[in-house]
């Protein structure tokens, strides 16, 4: 159930914040799972008297009772969370949802992240590197809008980077890098999280090549535990709730990635 956690860190990382919460009692999250977070104090009263509801955030890292989240200030909720001081308290519900199914032994994982959507790939890489039979090291491809956001890449190891403005790494889209990787190894499995257009491009690219892709979707949420039916995305078998049927979903279940099903752009 909902836990009151203490902020033990909240550092700037380029355009993002890394929020660290002490969560000794919390269960260990699976990569791709998320939590609903809300500041205990001053949650509300921001722009348009918001936020009112908690906000969903992927667990970006977890070790010995410390949970790390990567935040981008895009509105009143994230604004408040990015302003949290060490010692302040946060309501946390989670870990929630279905995480990433790990690759089978010998299968190469290609991690594709866009913007703040790289968060769940951080904990996924942590896990893959910890995993004994992860003989094949994962490939990490990250795309960002600009240099300030590209700072987020420092959370992962050996990442190839693309930026829209070419300020850092490849000038262009992360999916350009993905195309190259897939050409080299169609037997890989793709793990992706990011803006809807990036996820849709990834889905399409993997579909034509018959490469399995596991997409971590996003959606506006009120509850995070299946209560409100507000977070649905259209799939081949009708609407699914991102919070309990996802957030990670096999790409083949989607005709296309809904415009509202991605990370903040």
């Amino acid at each position, binding site marked *: 159930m909902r836990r009151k956690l203490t902020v033990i860190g909240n550092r700037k990382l380029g355009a993002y914040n890394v929020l660290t919460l002490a969560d000794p009692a919390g269960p260990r999250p699976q990569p791709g799972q998320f939590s609903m977070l809300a500041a205990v104090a001053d949650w509300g009263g921001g722009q348009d008297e918001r936020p*009112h509801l908690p906000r969903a955030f992927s667990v970006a890292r977890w070790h010995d009772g410390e949970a790390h989240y990567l935040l981008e200030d895009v509105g009143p909720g994230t604004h408040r969370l990015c302003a949290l001081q060490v010692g302040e308290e946060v309501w946390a519900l989670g870990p929630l949802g279905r995480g990433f199914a790990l690759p089978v032994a010998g299968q190469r994982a290609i991690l594709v992240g866009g913007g703040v959507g790289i968060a769940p790939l951080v904990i996924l890489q942590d896990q893959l590197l910890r995993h004994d039979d992860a003989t094949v090291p994962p490939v990490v491809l990250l795309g960002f809008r600009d240099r300030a956001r590209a700072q987020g890449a420092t959370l992962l190891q050996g990442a190839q980077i693309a930026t829209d403005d070419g300020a850092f790494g490849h000038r262009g889209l992360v999916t350009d890098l993905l195309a190259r990787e897939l050409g080299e190894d169609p037997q890989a499995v793709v793990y992706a999280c990011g803006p809807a257009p990036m996820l849709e491009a990834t889905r399409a690219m993997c579909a034509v090549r018959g490469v399995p892709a596991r997409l971590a979707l996003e959606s506006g949420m*009120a509850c995070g535990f299946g209560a409100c*039916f507000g977070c649905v995305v259209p799939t081949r078998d009708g609407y699914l709730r991102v919070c309990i049927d996802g957030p990670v979903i096999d790409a083949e279940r989607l005709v296309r990635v809904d415009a509202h099903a991605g990370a903040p752009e």
Partner: protein
Amino acid sequence: MSVSFCGLELAHPVINASGTFDLIAADTAFGASLHAEFPFAAFVSKTITLEPREGNPPPRLWEAPAGLVNSIGLPNKGLEGYLAYELPVLAELLAAAHAPLITNVMGSSAAEIAQLLTACETRVEIAAVELNVSCPNIETGLDIGADPTQLEAVVREVRPHSSKPLIVKLTPNTADVASCAAAAEAGGADAVSLINTLRAMALEQARDRATGRRAWLGGSTGGLSGPAIRAVALAQVAAVARRVSIPVVGMGGVQCAQHARDLLDVGATLVAVGTESFRDPCAGRHIALGLHS
């Protein structure tokens, strides 16, 4: 603290508002910890319709000042799917919690409602039926519940089809909710519940050259809930409780024991918690404990 409502003996006066808590999903998400601190003295299902419904296209949510506008569109498996797949699971989960099940149904005509009631009649797992005559976020056309005469006629017509306690969930989007409540009572309702969401809407922020600015919600309009409507709920519940002699289930923006106390003090027998459960799945339990002390 225990309270009897339409012949049901409840451990406390706090239940969930229909459509704001999916017990099966919550069980998946929380498992044992949910049952360890079960939030509600009775459980109300989401609205069930004769045919399955997909619900409205996303986006379905808009956060408003101190509230939420939703345009969910009553997705449900339909009567058959509900009875076949959900009811048994709900019954099992609720048996553990000693909480009776109230099934919420909606139909667009007396005939349809009668069918729904008849189907519920045969199922012992269903302790009572809540009739939703007040759903603002389906394509308009006046709600059945918005006009007292129409409402009384419908309730009178469907009443014989159910021997279970019948709760009529009124619409707040009407000129005189007390008259609607009196009409439901005259028609044979055993209780009334209110308030449902207030008709509301939001626009997408971006302006599209071609289309201008469209409605944000896939369903175009939606319903406002949460603290923003609490003072409206209190006024409507007070007006209804003064008018009718059947029990009243009060809801609308309840976040803590004090808000529940307000509704009870103006005449409600039970209080339902909706939007607040999204912020805290255990809100119902904390409110019940707060009322206790």
